[in-house]
Structures are given as structure tokens and as C-alpha cells.
């Protein structure tokens, strides 16, 4: 690795180290916000790993997340706790692999519709098996603390950033960028486009399932309507796009302001939350068409121009 690489990795490590100190602030409120930020940072970043370069919009996050919560819900009494996120990751990746093989040869709107239906499909399968067995919700009663959940999410975030950074510098990342620019050209250049897309989709699906597995003890009670809530898929897409998917850190700069915005809306407009949210979306799309990444890069470019003028 070159010197700038070490600087990037070192800088990221310092930032993660600082973020890991949050539970010591003693404020349950900010820790709660920290968990929300960490959760959406992982989900949005892993989503953008796949959807950023390929431009395939996946609405399957809720499906993978729900599968993960069910892995913890079903397994936490029988298996050691640390194995659950890993099993969830494998389960999510396998599901993503199956879905990917079936659908990633499709393009555009077909893929979007299928991923949207996936969460509902898995949810109906679970409901059906509950109806057969008479078993209702699952109770995940553990002594896991909020700080423990936060650190797990933070660790997962670090892993996702590292993976994303490595993928971007690998042949796979290069192949995906070409696919995103022009899939026909990519195929003609000898790239196995289906394989590349499925692999990345598996990473994204596995990570979302791990997030679900980690968060299950926080919700305590797991039932299909809560675990597979479709709103989650949309929130992830909106946050990632608000940040910008062209950079690895793009979704993160969308997630942080968005979480504070949601919090401000929820606490100040308890009776018009949805309305205020809609207005906020309109304003954001109108003022920041390229997301926060665009804003930051414009500012950088202006600074460079100013320096040049001097």
C-alpha cells in the first residue's frame, strides 16, 4: 500500500476509535441516536456497495434484515450469542445469492419490483409456518445492553468500510464500475456480469441480515409485521441517495444529518411527522440534487478555485 492509503486507513481507524467512545458519554439519548446512525450507516453503505456502481435499486433490505432478526429470535437460546450474527450473515448471503441468480439477469424496473416483493414473500412464509405451528411472536430476552449493540454495529460498520475500500480497488470493483457505465460493453470485454453482480448483492444482503441479528435483542419481541416493515428498505435508499452513492463515505454523510432531521421532526411535529418528512424530502431534492457528496465536492472545487486565483 502507498502512503496515501495508510493515511486513509489510519484516519478512518481514528474516527472509529472516537465513535467507540460514545457509550462513555453517559447519555442514553445520544447512545440511542448513535445506534440509529450506526444501523443506517451500515445498511446504507452496504446497499450502496452494490447499487452505487451497478445502478440497480434494491428494495430488499427489509427482507434480509428480517431474516437476520429471525435467526437471533430462533437461535439465541440454543446457540452461543456470537455465532448468531455470523449465521445471519450466511443466511442473508445465501438468500441474496438465490435471488440474485434468479433476478440479476433482469434489469431495471423488474429487479426493483422483485426486491420489493421479496420482503413480503419471506414474511408470508414465516406467517404461514406460524399459522401451521400456532407459534406467535418470539421473545428475545437477553441481558444485551445498548452499548453492546452499538459496539457490534460499529464493528460491523468498520468491516463494511474496509470491505468496500478493498472491493473498490479490486478487479471486482473495476468490473462493477464498467457494468454500471455500460453493461453491454462490460459483457463484450469478457466480464462475467451476472457473477459480479450476484457476488456484490450477496455482500449487501449478508450485511443487512447481520444488522437484523444484532438489533433483535433491542426490539425484544419479534413478529413478522415488525421485522419485515417495508419502510426500512425505503429509508435506506433515501439516506444513501441523500448522501450520494458515488463515494464509499457518501451514504454516511447522508445518514448522519438525516437521523438528526428525523429526530428533530419527530420531537417537534408529533402530529405531523409524516407531513414534515415529505416537505423535507421535497426541499432536499430541490436544493441538493446530487446529495451531500455533491455539496461537499462543490465546496472543495470552490476552495481550489479560490486558491488558484490567489
Amino acid at each position, binding site marked *: 500500500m502507498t502512503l496515501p492509503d495508510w493515511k486513509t486507513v489510519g484516519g478512518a481507524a481514528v474516527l472509529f476509535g472516537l465513535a467507540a467512545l460514545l457509550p462513555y458519554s453517559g447519555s*442514553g439519548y445520544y447512545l440511542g*441516536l448513535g445506534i*440509529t446512525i450506526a444501523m443506517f450507516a451500515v445498511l446504507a453503505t452496504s446497499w450502496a456497495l452494490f447499487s452505487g456502481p451497478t445502478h440497480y435499486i434494491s428494495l430488499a433490505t427489509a427482507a434480509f434484515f428480517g431474516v437476520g432478526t429471525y435467526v437471533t429470535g430462533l437461535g439465541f437460546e440454543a446457540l452461543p450469542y456470537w455465532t448468531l450474527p455470523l449465521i445471519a450473515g450466511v443466511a442473508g448471503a445465501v438468500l441474496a445469492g438465490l435471488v440474485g441468480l434468479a433476478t440479476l439477469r433482469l434489469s431495471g424496473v423488474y429487479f426493483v419490483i422483485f426486491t420489493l416483493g421479496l420482503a413480503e414473500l419471506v414474511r408470508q412464509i414465516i406467517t404461514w409456518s*406460524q399459522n401451521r405451528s*400456532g407459534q*406467535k411472536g418470539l421473545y428475545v430476552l437477553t441481558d444485551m445492553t445498548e452499548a453492546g449493540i452499538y459496539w457490534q454495529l460499529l464493528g460491523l460498520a468498520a468491516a463494511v468500510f474496509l470491505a468496500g475500500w478493498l472491493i473498490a480497488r479490486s478487479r471486482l470493483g473495476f468490473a462493477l464500475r464498467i457494468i454500471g457505465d455500460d453493461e453491454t460493453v462490460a459483457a463484450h470485454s469478457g466480464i462475467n456480469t451476472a457473477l459480479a453482480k450476484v457476488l456484490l448483492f450477496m455482500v449487501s444482503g449478508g450485511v443487512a441480515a447481520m444488522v437484523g441479528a444484532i438489533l433483535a435483542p433491542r426490539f425484544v*419481541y419479534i413478529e413478522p409485521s415488525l421485522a419485515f416493515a417495508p419502510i426500512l428498505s425505503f429509508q435506506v435508499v433515501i439516506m444513501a441517495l441523500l448522501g450520494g452513492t458515488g463515494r464509499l463515505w457518501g451514504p454516511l454523510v447522508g445518514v448522519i444529518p438525516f437521523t438528526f432531521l428525523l429526530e428533530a421532526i*419527530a*420531537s417537534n411535529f408529533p402530529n405531523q411527522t409524516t407531513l414534515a418528512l415529505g416537505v423535507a424530502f421535497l426541499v432536499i431534492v430541490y436544493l441538493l440534487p446530487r446529495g451531500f457528496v455533491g455539496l461537499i465536492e462543490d465546496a472543495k472545487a470552490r476552495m481550489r478555485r479560490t486558491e488558484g486565483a490567489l
Partner: protein
Amino acid sequence: MKRRTLMKLTAATSLALSMMHGPAFADAHVDPIVIGAVAPKTGPLAGGSTVSHWPNIALWAGQINARGGLNVGGTMHPVEIIEYDDQTNPGETIKAVQRLATQDEADFILAPYGTGLNIAAAPIFARYGYPQITSTAITDQVAELSAQFPNMFFTLGGSKGLAEGAVEVLVNLRDAGDIGSKVAMVNVADAFGIELAAAARPALEAAGFDIVYDSSYPLGTQDLSPVVKGAANAGPDAFLAWSYPGDTFALTELSQIEGMDVKVFYTAVGASFPAYYGRFGAAAENIIGAGGVNADSQAFQDYRAAHMAATGAEPDYWASAMMYSSLQVLEQAIEGAGTIDRAVVSQYIKDNAFETVVGTIDFDAQNNNASFWTVGQWQDGVFRGVASTGREGAVDVKIKTGWE
């Protein structure tokens, strides 16, 4: 120019707001007791919470402040309610409870709405030591939950009790010679419907009933007529539907069209809504359903009148009164303990019995209210309790005679 107009507007608005708040806090020396409330105002559960949850909070706070506030150790403190919408999302419920505990520094927080949202919030209530008196959480895991969250209380009962209550009504009718032993049963394939059906099946078999039709349908299905036709063709004496509000209405309507010839017609959630009688009128007579209250008691009559005067809407005959009774428990515990110290108030709730709109609530060692209504019946336009686990005022159940 524009800015000046805006400033005038702002000034006028804030003046108006301060005038609106004025009378409630007339005595500036007394701090209000801050009470947090989190429940759906949007999302899938908003329909239920806007009928049986939020109106009770408005009614209760209005009543307390009208009489000068809560009497805490001889001083009257008005209550101030801070409301948040959790959008039927457990993550939002957790965040809102945390916000109430740490940012708003609420003295007490009312239990959220529904089973999943209440249980999701339980760890936060426990961490900050808030008593959580649930009125809409239905669980058969009371022992485990109260062991982990010692200040969590349960008033609505469990699905086992509700299902067995319905079976008990059938047993009594059969023993009296009013019905035979053929039962048709359907359930909505979703959480509560599944659990009720699972509890009812063995209870029916143990009581010697013959389940001639047993089927389920997905939540939100548009066409329930195959289910109703199938049940009707099986020629049952009693029809039991472990249903949710949407399908409760649809099943009743289709059974009416089909002219299902049964002597007992039961639908679960939604049968106790005033809108149910409003929709079906005389055809709803003698229909039985989950819930019920002692509708003829003076306490309920007074509550119903106050609810209508304060909110302009009728309370339903099950969850509304349960929700209001949980507020009465909190009110009496604060005044009885004479403090807003949450540990003392929680202990007071465990140690004492409370007179409420649904009768006496006395929590057992597992923080459970073991006496609750299980079955009610529409009689002369009122949904009266006909079976309970230890409530007084049950009326005799009547058999259904046609759909006119």
C-alpha cells in the same frame, strides 16, 4: 416589510399560545408533573390507537387539570402531557421513550400501544425505573417479562384466557341444551389471530366439541366469501372467528348475506367497537366477541358520558376502558404514595388494589391483572360482558336468532 409582518404574526401566535396554556398553569409556583405519551398516530396501528388510546389521555389529563391537578403530598400539581408519534415502528418507540426520559425529563411515561411496541419499550422503561402499566399488550409470557422488567404491569389479559372464555360460553350453552357440539372456526393468519386459534383448538376438543370446519385466511385478504361459504356449508351450531377489525366487519357482512344459520356467532377484535353496531344495527344483536365491560355499572356509564363530552366519540367496550383504568391506577398510585419518586410509586402499584372504571385492579405477584373480561355480547345496542375471569356484572348470554 415582509419580515415585519412575519414578526407580528409570530408575536401574535406566541401570545395566543401562552393564553391557551394560561389557565392550566395559573399557579406559577407549582411545577406541573410531566407525563410522556408515545403511541402510533400513523402506521398500521394508528386506527386502533386513535380510537382507544389517545382519546383517553386527553380525557384523563383534562379531568385531572380541571380538578386542580394531582394531589402529591398535599400540593396540587397539574399534569402536562408530551405526545410523540412512533409511526407503529418499534425503533421509533424506543427513541421516543428515551427522548422523554432524558431530554424531556418526564416524571412518568404512559405505556405505549400494542403488544410489540410495549415489549420493545420495556428495557428503556426498566432502565430509567418508570412504571409501565400496559393496557393493550396481550402476552402469555407475563411471568418471564415481569421477571426481567420488574415495573412492567399487565391489565388486558392473555390470549389463552380470551379463547377459553369463548369456549366456556359454548360449553354453558350446550349444557343448557341451546346448541349442539358442531363448531366452525376460522382465524386470520397473523400474530394474535394465530395465537387465539392455537389456544382455542385444544380447549374445544377437551370440552368435547366437534370442529367441523377449521381454516385460516391471510391478513388483508379481499375475498372472504370462500371462508364464510365453507363454514356455512359445514352446518355448524357455532361460528368462531379469531379475527382483526377489518376482517371482523367483512366476515360479519358476508355471513349476513349468506344468512349463516348459527346460534352463536363470534368475532374477536373489533366486535366491541361502537362502529360495529353502527354498521350492522339490529343484525349485530346477540353477536358475541372478544372483550366486554360491565356496561351497566355506574362507573362505566359515567366514564362513557365523560369520554363523549371530552372527545366527541364513544369509547369502545373493551380496550378503551382498560386504557383509562391504567391511567386511573397511575393517578391513584401517585396520590396514594404522595410522591413522584418512581420507585416508590411502582412499589405502591404492586402493594395496593385500585378502584377503576373496569372494577378493582389488584396485580398479582407477576404484576398481572388476573381478572379481565373475555367475552361480550351485543344486547339492545350495548356490548355487555358475558364471561370473564373474575369480574362482576356478567349478564346471561343469549343465542342468535337470525340476521334481522
